[in-house]
């Protein structure tokens, strides 16, 4: 394949330098805490995300409850009734946890760390120690974020976007804007550092450690997705890191990057001059929009892989799929302005950003068509990973299409900052990405833990979550179209928002029901971990390299040998073969036996 010959795999001599028979470290701490084994690091990221998502969901349920019963007494809230600043601290914490510690962490660093070396036939990541450091930085960032809840003044109230001057002046702008906001920024900076180190590791691993024969054109689409995501992280998080440092300096060192002259807060004139609040927005969204794709691209890779496996067909249009991943990664960096149509940025640039934003719909549509093409004419096995992958496609279509409204400045002029936006990004980068994570979890659980999840419970969990997520987020479009504003602690101060409360009540009920359904997943996950049926090496009859080694894989992944790759990643139902899948390491002469 010509795409593959462009960059050839690393020479044999370089590869031999890598030890292939690693000794498993003994002792719990060396083995599970400060391990440099990419599989352990992957699981560390995965369990960190699992913890984070549980906290994030509980926070969102508290918010949903407060929105429809604003005067209800809550047992664990100081003073009984949730205050607006407590609500806004929940908004900030929920957004930050979900975006950074769930959507950025699980799909890329969780599954990516575990399966990238396995899928390209490598014994380890390129920089194993760096990998462990990346995780522990991320873990430290998470503790730092949680600490915002217990510092004096409480958590920051400026949302995950932290627009200055609200976030730049200290507690004069509101409770939580003192120490809480500072600690929040420090948490983000540490997270950026961890993500940058990890992205370099991913890029180096993919370029240098592919097994012989694993050309670019034979890489599974998951690997393509992790590759494009890693490059996006490298380019985007550096900018957030810089922006965060500047914001910290504005707050604590008297600099004026984002703070203009003449600010009067609560009657006090502020001693700042010369900065621009819009500069932060440009820096933030230059990171923030690629971040959306960082969250969703790995899911796209997983979905392509799962659809092929359970349709028993090659991925339709493999090259178009790899190409559209790259196109989305690239275009993702030139559309940030659509977050700023009504920010006061020149209205002329609004037109340019609109055109670019609408263009990113094209590679997204290409992916959708090719997924449908993969299903077409297939022999679909409705196992739980497949259901979640098909659910992903449905949510991606729905969430993507609501985006073509928001990509037009005239329409954004009325939909901006309403629940329409909440519905849009929750469906396309929240629910779709989570369905990608669920698909990956159910697909790779046997490989990671050597056991199989209960299929009946997994399906039940899928049906409730699929229906539930639509019940939560579809009505929010209508709230937004009617002008329903987001990030309000209480709607009763505005007449027309009060009129929308019945819709909100329905959404809250749906949220609690869907939240409860996640208990099924947790039970199934942890129960199967301990007492699920033993998993064979290749339970799904899949073709990629991780299925050619034991479940779970040995410390050096392939038991002292490195695989050699002879064919593309999705050779299903090849005419003439006696079986309907040909693993990537199946030599041509061996395949003659099965053909």
């Amino acid at each position, binding site marked *: 394949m010509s795409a593959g010959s462009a960059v050839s795999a690393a020479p044999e001599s370089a590869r031999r330098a890598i030890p292939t028979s690693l000794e498993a470290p003994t002792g719990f701490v060396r083995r599970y805490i400060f391990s440099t084994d990419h599989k352990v690091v992957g699981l560390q990221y995965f369990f960190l995300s699992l913890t984070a998502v549980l906290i994030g969901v509980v926070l969102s349920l508290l918010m949903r409850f407060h929105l429809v019963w604003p005067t209800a007494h809550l047992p664990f809230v100081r003073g009984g009734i949730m205050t607006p600043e407590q609500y806004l601290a929940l908004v900030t914490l929920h957004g930050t946890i979900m975006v950074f510690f769930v959507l950025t962490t699980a799909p890329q660093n969780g599954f990516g760390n575990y399966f990238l070396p396995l899928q390209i036939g490598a014994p380890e990541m390129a920089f194993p120690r760096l990998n462990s450091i990346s995780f522990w930085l991320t873990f430290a960032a998470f503790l730092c974020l949680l600490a915002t809840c217990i510092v004096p003044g409480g958590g920051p109230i400026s949302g995950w976007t932290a627009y200055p001057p609200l976030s730049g002046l200290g507690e004069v702008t509101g409770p939580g804007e003192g120490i809480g906001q500072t600690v929040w920024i420090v948490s983000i900076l540490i997270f950026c550092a961890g993500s940058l180190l990890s992205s370099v590791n991913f890029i180096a691993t993919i370029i240098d450690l592919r097994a012989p024969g694993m050309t670019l054109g034979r890489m599974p689409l998951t690997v393509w997705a992790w590759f494009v995501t890693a490059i996006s992280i490298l380019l985007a998080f550096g900018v957030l890191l810089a922006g965060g440092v500047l914001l910290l300096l504005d707050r604590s060192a008297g600099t004026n990057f984002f703070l203009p002259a003449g600010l009067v807060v609560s009657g006090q004139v502020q001693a700042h001059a010369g900065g621009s*609040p819009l500069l932060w927005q440009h820096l933030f969204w230059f990171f923030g929009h690629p971040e959306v794709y960082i969250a969703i691209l790995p899911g796209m890779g997983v979905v392509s892989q799962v659809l092929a496996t359970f349709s028993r067909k090659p991925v339709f249009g493999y090259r178009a799929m790899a190409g559209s991943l790259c196109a989305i990664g690239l275009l993702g960096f030139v559309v940030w302005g659509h977050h700023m149509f009504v920010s006061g940025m020149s209205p002329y640039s609004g037109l340019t950003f609109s055109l670019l934003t609408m*263009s990113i719909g094209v590679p997204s549509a290409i992916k959708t068509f090719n997924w449908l093409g993969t299903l077409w004419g297939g022999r679909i096995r409705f196992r739980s990973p497949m259901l979640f992958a098909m659910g992903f496609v449905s949510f991606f279509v729905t969430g993507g299409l609501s985006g073509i409204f928001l990509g037009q400045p005239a329409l954004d002029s009325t939909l901006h900052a309403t629940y329409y936006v909440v519905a849009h990004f929750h469906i396309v980068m929240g629910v779709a990405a989570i369905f990608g994570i669920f698909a990956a979890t159910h697909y790779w659980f046997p490989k990671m833990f050597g056991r199989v999840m209960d299929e009946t419970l997994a399906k039940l969990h899928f049906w409730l979550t699929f229906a539930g997520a639509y019940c939560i987020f579809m009505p929010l479009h209508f709230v937004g179209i009617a002008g329903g504003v987001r990030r309000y602690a209480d709607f009763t101060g505005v007449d027309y928002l009060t009129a929308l409360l019945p819709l909100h009540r329905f959404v809250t009920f749906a949220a609690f029901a869907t939240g409860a359904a996640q208990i099924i997943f947790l039970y199934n996950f942890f129960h199967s971990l301990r007492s699920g049926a033993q998993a064979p090496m290749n339970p799904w009859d899949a073709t990629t390299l991780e299925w050619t080694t034991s479940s779970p894989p040995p410390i050096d992944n392939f038991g002292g040998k490195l695989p050699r790759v002879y064919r593309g990643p999705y050779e299903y139902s090849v005419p003439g073969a006696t079986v309907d899948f040909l693993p990537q390491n199946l030599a041509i002469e061996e395949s003659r036996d099965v053909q």
Partner: protein
Amino acid sequence: MLAPVMTHSRNSVRGSAGPAVLLALLLLILVGVTVVLFASHAYSPPSPITAEGRLTDQQYGRTLWVAGVIFILAQLALAYAALRFRDRGRPARFIRGNNALEVVWTLATVVLFVGLSVMGRRAWADARLGAAPADAVQIEVTTTQFVYTFRYPGPDGKFGRLDPNLVSASTGNPLGLDPNDAAGKDDIVVPVLTVPANRPVELLIRSQDVVHNFFVRELRLQQDAVPGMVIPVNFTADRVGRYEIVCTQLCGQGHNTMRSFLNVVPEPEYESFLKQQAVGQ
């Protein structure tokens, strides 16, 4: 080379139709309920009160058609695939792709999406790109945590100088009007926005402290108020009425309490409003 394990029969269980039917059914319900809710306009905002707002609604309608048709076709295709291609024991068709199809759907989406963006230019351009006509009524909008303050230039048509050091809401000078500037003597400062119907209005939007927003859904207009900037927006409201102004940019603890009203009144009533306020100042 490891010998691949070929345990192929295990998974080719010819599944029951259950999951396929249930998935297709849920997708059908999704499409049906969505179409009914959008078609019923049950949650549409009140009709717009400006020409630009009506252009925006037209563009919204066009976009809804394009998005709606793709939504219905894609979700139904997924449902059809689930039903039609479930494992019935027949081998899957071996297809790697189809270049002609790739070209067709790529070009089709380019035309549709970029076309929509191009068609939507006018609604935006009409609302944002033109300068206000010379006879437009100028009103300054100032946002602070968590109130709107509106300033009219008064009979002299000139806004007086503002000084941040003089800001004192408690003594009745929330904007910091400089008492030594003659142009400011007749400025009218009020908490509610009153504009004449059928006359162009130019708002000069600024903020004293943090980023806020000015949103009136009947105008189909949101504009951030950014400290350090004066952002002009103009409109001509053609329906008399009282409309809620809300803040959509998270501005602090009292964000959800930040509200005012836009009163669109007939010209004579507007003139008497100005006279009345001039006496009061």
